[in-house]
Structures are given as structure tokens and as C-alpha cells.
């Protein structure tokens, strides 16, 4: 078997314990004045290697010679566009905004990849949002997302055109799709990124993402593999501005029947009733929790949401009491959201809930309990009864918006 991926060089270790406190995972202990790494806890993140002033911790070189690819042969920043019902989803514009920066930093082309049926007309829209080139894969089989054809087409394109970076939305569809693609093309894939940057020295994509429910952040690279693939969280990056005068190239991708074959088949699609706003896409979310007391009282939340053109969220407590469907649940076992404004009404803010919303730009919390943990993340806090305050807030907002 392979040797241990990380080890302490005993002759070099002076027993200074710096690495013990540097380890985020509590995996290093001192044994007989020498650092000792518990590989069952170690994630080989390298924090100790960096901290050790005596070069006493050695990490195994990651890549095998056989795997080394000619990194310079991979060019272009790709954005996998997401469309629903022939309309380009807003996450795509966010990816193009971020992709443009990365492409400029690398002096490479920004390309959008658009799959659909009779979708070619949307290519110009992607060019006006910053794409230099749009690859269009047009076929009836690609009308809506289907795991295998979508993956097969993109895998083929990656093999044909060798992009350097491939970005995709961290949506239900995006995560299902790129996980298959990354394994097939032997690429590194980082999920749910909230920050992307180019390392000026190596040109590697620095991918930053939350882990452990947002308790820690990790920066991840794929130094020896291309393309570098990442899914990006909704609402974190700014949408690319529209410039109608921009010009770009449209490339129609040749599709063969084997690429479009699927073992699975969609029998029907059922839109959720009453769900006017997808909560991961909403700029504003109004959320209700246990403090809303009963299902009828969600009308109070809904009213404010309507005035603000906001989505309606809920805590686990409200969903588990069947006051509102699961698709509205925000938090660790629900959805992670990142709106501009999150209004938490009668939500105490258990850590699982905070994990799903604490990266919102502005947070308003209304709760009766002054010690509720939600106040620790709130930009503006109100100690009081949400059922009393929310209708008044709704009235004030109506005034502001001239409704």
C-alpha cells in the first residue's frame, strides 16, 4: 500500500507544539516530545506543514507522474449556463460576471455553454453578459435537464476543447450534473464556492467555500488537474452587466445519438403550487419559525413577502409542524440561501438554521427571547412579538414603496 500521506520527520521535530494548535481537526498530539499525527482525524489539509518552522512535517506529493497533464494546453473559462423552460436562469449571469474577472486575470476567453432545445436565440443574451464565445448544444433531448445526456454532451465538449476552468451553479441541477462530469474527465471539483480568485504565481483557481455548516472556510485548489471545476453558490457573485453592443462567436456543437441517450426518463414535471419565488434565488426572504405559532399566521409573513416581492422561508420547526412545505425550509437539512435581505420572524436561530442563512448580506431578526442565538448574526435585532411587529413593518414598507 501507499505510504502515509503526511508524516512527522522525527529527527527534525523539536517538540514545539506549534502544529498541535495549528491543526483545525485536533489530529496532532505530543508523544514523547514529538508531534504525532492521528491519520484517522487528519484531513491532510496541510495547516501544520505551513506552521512548522523546522520543516519537520512532510506531505506526500499529490500527483503521480502518469497523471501529469500539460496544464498549458487547457485554455478558456467556461460557464455552464442553466436554463429552465427556455429562459436563462439568473445564476448564469452571476457566473458570467465572476467568469469574466477570472478570464481577464488569465488572459483567456470567457465561454458560455448552453444546452437546450431551440435555444440558439439565447446565445446573444450570454454574449451581452460578457461571453466571448457561446457553445450551443441544441437537440429536443436537451429541452430540459436530464442527467446522462447533459453530462455526456459536456464531457465530450471538455475532451474536445480542453477548458481551463468550468463553473456551474450550485443548484440541484448543477450539483447533479457536474459531479458526473468531474469524475468522468478526472477533474477536481469544489462544491458551493463563495469566493473565486486566480493565484497570481501559479495561475491556479483559488476556490473558497464554507464547511462544517459555515463554521470554517477552506480554500481549495486542483494543482495538477484540468479543467478546474467549481459550483458556485447562488446570490454570492454579482450579475454581469448587460452590454447589447458586445459581439461574440457562436459555435454549434455537433451532437451524435450516443451523446443524447438516456437510461432515465422524465415522466412528468409538477411545479410547486403557490411557489412564486424560488427561495435560493430570492433577493429578499421573509422567514417564519416557531414564534409564528400556527399555520394561519403565515399569512402575516406572506403579506410582507408579497409587498417586498420576496420569497417565503421557514425554520425546521415550522416545516416539521406542517405549517409550510419542506421546499421552504432554510438551514442545514433544508436549503442554503444567500439573499440581500433576510427577515427572520419568530425564529430562535439554532445553529442548523444559521448555517443556512448567516451569509445573507443584511439580516433582520424579530424574536421575543432577547437571548435567542439569531441575534448573534442579526444586522438589526428587535426583541418583540413578530406577529405584532411584522404587520406594522408591512404597512411601513408599503408606504416606502408607494403601494
Amino acid at each position, binding site marked *: 500500500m501507499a505510504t502515509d500521506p503526511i508524516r512527522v520527520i522525527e529527527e527534525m521535530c523539536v517538540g514545539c507544539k506549534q502544529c498541535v494548535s495549528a491543526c483545525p481537526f485536533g489530529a496532532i498530539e505530543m508523544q514523547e516530545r514529538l508531534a504525532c499525527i492521528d491519520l484517522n482525524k487528519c484531513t491532510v489539509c496541510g495547516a501544520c506543514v505551513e506552521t512548522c518552522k523546522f520543516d519537520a512535517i512532510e506531505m506526500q506529493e499529490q500527483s503521480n507522474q502518469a497523471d501529469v497533464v500539460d496544464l498549458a494546453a487547457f485554455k478558456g473559462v467556461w460557464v455552464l449556463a442553466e436554463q429552465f423552460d427556455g429562459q436563462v436562469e439568473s445564476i448564469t449571469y452571476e457566473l458570467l460576471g465572476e467568469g469574466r474577472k477570472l478570464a481577464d486575470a488569465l488572459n483567456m476567453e470567457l465561454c458560455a455553454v448552453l444546452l437546450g432545445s431551440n435555444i440558439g436565440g439565447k446565445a446573444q443574451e450570454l454574449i451581452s453578459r460578457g461571453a466571448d464565445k457561446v457553445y450551443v448544444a441544441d437537440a429536443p433531448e436537451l429541452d430540459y435537464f436530464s442527467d446522462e445526456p447533459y453530462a455526456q454532451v459536456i464531457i465530450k465538449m471538455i475532451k474536445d476543447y480542453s477548458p481551463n476552468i468550468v463553473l456551474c451553479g450550485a443548484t440541484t441541477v448543477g450539483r447533479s450534473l457536474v459531479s458526473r462530469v468531474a469524475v468522468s474527465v478526472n477533474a477536481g471539483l469544489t462544491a458551493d464556492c463563495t469566493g473565486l480568485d486566480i493565484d497570481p504565481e501559479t495561475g491556479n483557481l483559488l476556490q473558497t467555500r464554507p464547511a462544517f455548516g459555515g463554521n470554517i472556510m477552506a480554500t481549495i485548489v486542483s494543482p495538477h488537474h484540468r479543467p478546474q471545476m467549481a459550483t458556485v453558490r447562488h446570490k454570492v457573485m454579482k450579475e454581469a452587466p448587460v452590454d447589447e453592443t458586445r459581439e461574440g462567436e457562436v459555435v454549434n456543437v455537433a451532437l451524435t445519438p450516443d451523446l443524447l441517450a438516456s437510461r432515465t426518463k422524465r415522466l412528468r414535471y409538477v411545479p410547486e403550487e403557490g411557489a412564486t419565488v424560488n427561495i435560493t434565488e430570492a433577493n429578499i426572504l421573509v422567514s417564519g419559525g416557531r414564534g409564528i405559532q400556527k399555520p394561519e399566521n403565515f399569512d402575516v409573513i406572506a403579506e410582507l413577502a408579497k409587498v417586498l416581492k420576496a420569497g417565503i422561508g421557514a425554520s425546521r420547526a415550522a416545516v416539521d409542524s406542517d405549517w409550510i412545505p419542506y*421546499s421552504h425550509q432554510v438551514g442545514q437539512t433544508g436549503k442554503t440561501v444567500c439573499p440581500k435581505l433576510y427577515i427572520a420572524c419568530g425564529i430562535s436561530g439554532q445553529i442548523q438554521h444559521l448555517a443556512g442563512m448567516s451569509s445573507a448580506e443584511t439580516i433582520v431578526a424579530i424574536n421575543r427571547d432577547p437571548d435567542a442565538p439569531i441575534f448573534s448574526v442579526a444586522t438589526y435585532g428587535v426583541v418583540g412579538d413578530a406577529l405584532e411587529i411584522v404587520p406594522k413593518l408591512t404597512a411601513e414598507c408599503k408606504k416606502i414603496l408607494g403601494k
Partner: protein
Amino acid sequence: MHFVVCIKQVPDTHDVKINPETNTLMREGVESIINPFDMYAIEEAVRLRERLGGTVTALTMGPPQAESALREAVAMGVDKGILVSDRAFAGSDTWATSYTLAKAIEKIGDATVILFGKQASDGDTAQVGPGVATHLDLPQITYVRKIEEINENHIVAERLLEGGFEAIESPLPCVLTVVKEINEPRLPSLKGKMAARKAEITTWGGDAIGADPDKLGLNGSPTKVVKIFTPPPREGGEMIEGDPDEIARKLAEKIKDIIIEAAS
């Protein structure tokens, strides 16, 4: 039919705290639990066996102590547990993890349905389920909220999407990742707990599953963590006080710019 449910032992996020002095995760005394999403996968696998007969195997990759997660699964009604564990697995990212699990499932041999929770609560990637499907060249249905129909050869399941759901038909074997909406996991029965204590847990290393050492652990992982840090704490909140009317007025003033922008 053979239902294989892949689970992960994770730290209970309730307990994960940051040491304010060193800015690192404090893991001492942190309890390990089965990833909450995997509980729904276990429950669904057990329900499928109760309806259709067959066997449920829980599979996990992790350090030796992950055995306790498998025993918990047995207490919930799983028939047997397999732990894949090897020092060579250390440093695995989702690519190497899905390869390793896929090799173990190949060794199991006759899996009909392979179930996962939609994602793990520590890594939150949702990449391993589809990754395993790809390594095994199997179809997948992700984010399953309901199994409508299943027999020896095919399955119809509802996949939750952002704005609704779709019913998808797939031949078997296939890979499913499930969401919370699918069921309510049971509490372990007394009989289950006794079975868990007596259960023999099989342990396989990299050699046993016939894995290519170059595809395991750090070697097999394209991604590499270069930095770990704690996010900057949110700014101290401002408390808005007064009578309810006053509060509403002040609050509306504070969020004025955002709501005007969103409305335009």
C-alpha cells in the same frame, strides 16, 4: 433485492465550536453522529426491504471508529454493516471517496438500489452520490422526495427541484440521493439495539476492494485544501427599540434602500 445505503459519520454540528484563541475547530468531546441526511436514506432502505424483501447493507468509508455509525444503522433495521477503512484513504476528496465506495459496491456485487443522503453535513458537497454512480456507470436520481413505484427491474421516483418536482423512471440498479421530505426515520427498537451490539461488522481495506492505490486518498484526489480559516464574525448587531409602531418605522428606514432596489 439488495439495498446498499452509503453513510458517513460526521461531527455533530451542534457541538462544533471555534476556539477563539487559536481560531481552530474544537473537536474535543464533539460527538460523532450519522450524517442527518443519511438517516433518511437508511430509513428508506429499510422500508424498501420491508415491502419487497431482500437485504439492506450499510456501507461507510472512514476511520475504525466509524464502525459505531454502522452499528447505529443496524439498530434501525439494517441487516449488515461494511466499513472500508485504510490509512491510504486519508486525504480523500470527493473523487477518491466516490472511487473507493464504488470499488466496495463492486465487491458487494449484487446491489439493486444504492442510496445516499443528499449531502453530508460536514462537507456539504452533494458530489459523492453522483460520483459513485459515474464510477459504476449507473443511472442516478438525485434529491429524491418520494419513491412512487419500484419492482425488480425499474423504479419511478420524484426528484425535488427548486420550483417543483419531476417524476423520473430509471432501470435498476441505480443510485438515489434522498432529501428529508422522503420519510421520518424511526427510532431504534430494543431488538434493533440488541442486534446492533451483536452485529459483526466487516472491514475492508484498499487491497480487499481491489482498489488502484494511485486512485486512493491524497494520490487519487485532484483537489487539495491549501488554507483553512474561520470566517470573519458578523458585525455586532444593532438593536432597535421602542414601541411596536416606532420599531416598525425605524426598521423600515434601515432596510429602505434594499427594498427599493429589489422592487425596481
